C-alpha cells in the first residue's frame, strides 16, 4: 500500500494499516544506520526544515540525523533566533519559509493544533514533532517500534502509562497508536493529572494507583513530570508524587518478568523513575532513542511519496 497523507499530524488520523506501514519501513531504515556509510540517496535534492518553537535536543537532533541519512538538505530554525520573537505570526513565518520552496517542515509548537493550522495553509508536508498537549506521533511510533521488536506484535500487549496524562502529548499518541494496533492500555496517575474522558480515548483503563496499572504489564511507560507542577493546585510535592507514582524496582517486580521499562526523556531521575530502574536490565530507554531515528526516516520517506530506498 502507499501512504496517502501529505502530512503526519497525529496517530489519531492514521489507520492501523498506515501505522503498520510506517513501522515496517522503520524496521528497514534501522539497518541503514548500522552500515559503514550511513546514507541513502532517497531524499536527495529535498529540503527539510526543522522549525522548533520549543526547546528540544533529542527530537530535533533525531529528525536532523534521519533527514541527513536520507540525503536531504536540512536546516534548523529555533524560536529563539526566529522572527517570532519580533511578533511575527505563525502563518507569516510559514509563508516566508514556503517562499524558499522547502519540501517538508518538521515543527514543534507549544500550542495544541498549531500543526493543523499550518498544514491547512501551506503546500509542503508538515510533520508534527509535538504540539502542546495534543500529539507527538514520532514518539508514539518509536515506542511502538521498540515494543514490536521485543514482542513481535503489539496485539494483546498490556501497556501501563504512568504520570501526567493531562499534559502529555506522548501519552495521547501512544494511546491512539497502541489501541489501534490491538494493545491494552492502562493509565495511572493522580486524578488531577488524568484528563476528563481519558477512558474513552481508546481501549483504555484508568487507575488511580500505579500498582493496578503495572500488575501483569508487558510494558511500563513512565512520563516526565514537570517539576513546576508541584506546589500549585495539581500536586502537593514531588516527594509525595515520587512515593506514589515513581517507578522503583519493587514496582517493576509486579509486572511480567521481562517487562520493558520506557521513558520518552528527558528523565527526572529519582522523581518519576529511580536510577537503578532507568539503568537496569528492563530499561530500553536508549533503544527508544535509536529507533527514533529509524521511525523518523520512515516518516520523512512516506510523506515524500515513498519510492525506492536505495
Amino acid at each position, binding site marked *: 500500500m502507499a501512504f496517502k497523507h501529505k502530512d503526519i499530524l497525529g496517530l*489519531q488520523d492514521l489507520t492501523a494499516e498506515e501505522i503498520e506501514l510506517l513501522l515496517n519501513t522503520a524496521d528497514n531504515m534501522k539497518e541503514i544506520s548500522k552500515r559503514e556509510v550511513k546514507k541513502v540517496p532517497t531524499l536527495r535534492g529535498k529540503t527539510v526544515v526543522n522549525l522548533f518553537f520549543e526547546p528540544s535536543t533529542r527530537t530535533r537532533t533525531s529528525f536532523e540525523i534521519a533527514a541527513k541519512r536520507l540525503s536531504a538538505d536540512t536546516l534548523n530554525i529555533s524560536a529563539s533566533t526566529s522572527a517570532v520573537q519580533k511578533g511575527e*505570526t*505563525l*502563518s507569516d513565518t510559514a509563508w516566508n519559509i514556503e517562499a524558499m520552496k522547502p519540501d517538508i517542515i518538521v515543527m514543534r*509548537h507549544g*500550542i*495544541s*493544533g*498549531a500543526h*493543523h*493550522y499550518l498544514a491547512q495553509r501551506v503546500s509542503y508536508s508538515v510533520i508534527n514533532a509535538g*504540539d*502542546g*498537549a*495534543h*500529539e507527538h506521533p514520532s514518539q508514539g511510533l518509536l515506542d511502538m517500534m521498540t515494543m514490536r521488536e521485543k514482542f513481535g506484535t503489539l496485539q494483546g500487549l498490556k501497556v501501563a502509562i504512568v504520570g501526567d496524562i*493531562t499534559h502529555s*502529548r506522548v501519552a*495521547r499518541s501512544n494511546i491512539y497508536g497502541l489501541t489501534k494496533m490491538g494493545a491494552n492500555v492502562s493509565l495511572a496517575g493522580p486524578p488531577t493529572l488524568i*484528563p*476528563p*474522558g*481519558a477512558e*474513552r*480515548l481508546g481501549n483504555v483503563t484508568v487507575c488511580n494507583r500505579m500498582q493496578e496499572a503495572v500488575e501483569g504489564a508487558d510494558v511500563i511507560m513512565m512520563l516526565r513530570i514537570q517539576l513546576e507542577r508541584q506546589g500549585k493546585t495539581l500536586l502537593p510535592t514531588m516527594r509525595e508524587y515520587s512515593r506514589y507514582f515513581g517507578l522503583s524496582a519493587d514496582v517493576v517486580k509486579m509486572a511480567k518478568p521481562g517487562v520493558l521499562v520506557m521513558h520518552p526523556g528527558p528523565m527526572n531521575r529519582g522523581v518519576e523513575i529511580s536510577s537503578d530502574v532507568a539503568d537496569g536490565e528492563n530499561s530500553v530507554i536508549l533503544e527508544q532513542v535509536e529507533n527514533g531515528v529509524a521511525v523518523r526516516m520512515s516518516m520523512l520517506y512516506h510523506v515524500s511519496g515513498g519510492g525506492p530506498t536505495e
Partner: protein
Amino acid sequence: MDLLIKGGRVIDPAQQIDEKLDIRITDGKIKELGKKLAADKSCEVIDAKGLIVTPGLIDMHVHLRDPGLEYKEDIVTGTRAAAAGGFTSVVCMPNTKPVNDNKAITTYIIAKAKAEGLVNVFPVGTITQGMKSENLAEMGDLKEAGCVAVSDDGRPVTNPELMRRALEYAKGMAIPLISHAEDLGLAGDGQMNDGFTATELGLKGIPWVAEDAATARDVYLAEFTNSPIHIAHVSTKGAVRIIRDAKARGVQVTCETAPHYFTLTEDAVRGYNTNAKMNPPLRTGEDVAAIKAGLADGTIDAIATDHAPHHSDEKDLEFALAANGIIGLETALPLALTLVEEKVLDLSALVAKLCLNPARILKLGRGTLEPGAVADITIIEPDRKWTVEAAKLASKSKNSPFLGMTMKGQSAYTIVGGKIVHKNQ
C-alpha cells in the same frame, strides 16, 4: 409619510395577537391594526402576504466595539448588521476602549448612534469602575446619561461582597444589573468546554462548574438582597436548573441564551476552528437539550446574540491565541426560527423572547405593536433560503461558525420608528 403593512401574519405577544392583520403607521408610531385598512394616496404600502410581522426584534447583548475598537466593528456597521438581521434595537455592552463606566462615553455612544446608527442603540454601563471589580461605577450618572443596565460583561464581578453591594445599589438606582457569571479561578486559562473533546484535542478545558458556581452565587446574592438580576449568555444544563429553581421560589432572576448555545456543541471546535471559540464555550449535546428545555418552559426569557466581532488577525491564529467570541446579529433570526420548526417554541413564544421580554427586562418601552407604540417592526420572510457568505455580511468582522451554511428565514423589512432601514432584495 404613512406606511401601511398589508396582509401579513401579525404576531404581537403583548396583545396576544396572532392573525392576519394590516398595520397603519403614522408619524413613526403605530396608528391602528385591523382588517382591510384602506391606503390613502400619500401612503406607502408594503405587501406582507406570506410574511410574518412582529414587533421590532431587540438584541439585548451585543458588542459594538465603539469607541476604541473600531477596527472590529463600529456603531455604523454594527447597526447595519442589526438591521440586516431584523433587529430594530441593540443593547451594547460596555467593554469598549475606554470602557463605558462614565457619562462621557455613554453620551458619545448615544450621540453617534443617533447621528449615524441605523437602529436604536441602548448602552449598558459598567458595574464597577474600569470593570476592575474594585469600586462601584457611578450607576446613577450612567442611568441619567441613558444607560439601560449595568454589567461588567466579559468579566465577572470577582469579589462577592462587591457584587452584593452592586445589586443593592443598582436596585436603589432602579437600573437592571446583568451578570456575566463565570468563576475565573475554575475557568483558568481554558480554551473550550472541559470534557472528552478537549482531552482529545489536547486543549485546556473550561468546566461547566465555572458557570454553574458563579450563577448560583449571583442568584443567591439576588435572593439575599431581594434585587433583580439578569444572567447573560446561559450555556449549561446546571445554570438552567439553578435559574429554574430560583424562579420557582420567587427570586427576581431573568436570563438569556444565545443562538449558538442551542445550535452547536463543542464538536464544532474539532479541527481547531477558532470561529467556534467563545466564552462561555460551546458545551455538550446534553447542555443544548437543557437550553431548549429552558426556552420551552420559560426559564430562559430571552435570546440575545452576544455579537462579538473580532478582526481576522485575532481569529486567524493558533487556537490558544485566538480571541473569544463570534458575530451573531445576521444569523440569529433563522437560527431562532429552527426552534419553531423543532417545536421547542411556538412562533409567538419565540417572538416574545426576541422583543417583548428583553424590552420588559430592561424597561425599554418597546417590543409591542399596540397603537401608540413606537413603530419598530420586523417583517420576516420565514421560508427564504440563503447562504451565509462573509462578503455579504454587513458586520465589519466575519467571525462566524455558520459561514457557508444555508439558513432559512430572513428579515424582509426592518422598520425603525416607521422608517424602513433595511429591505431585503
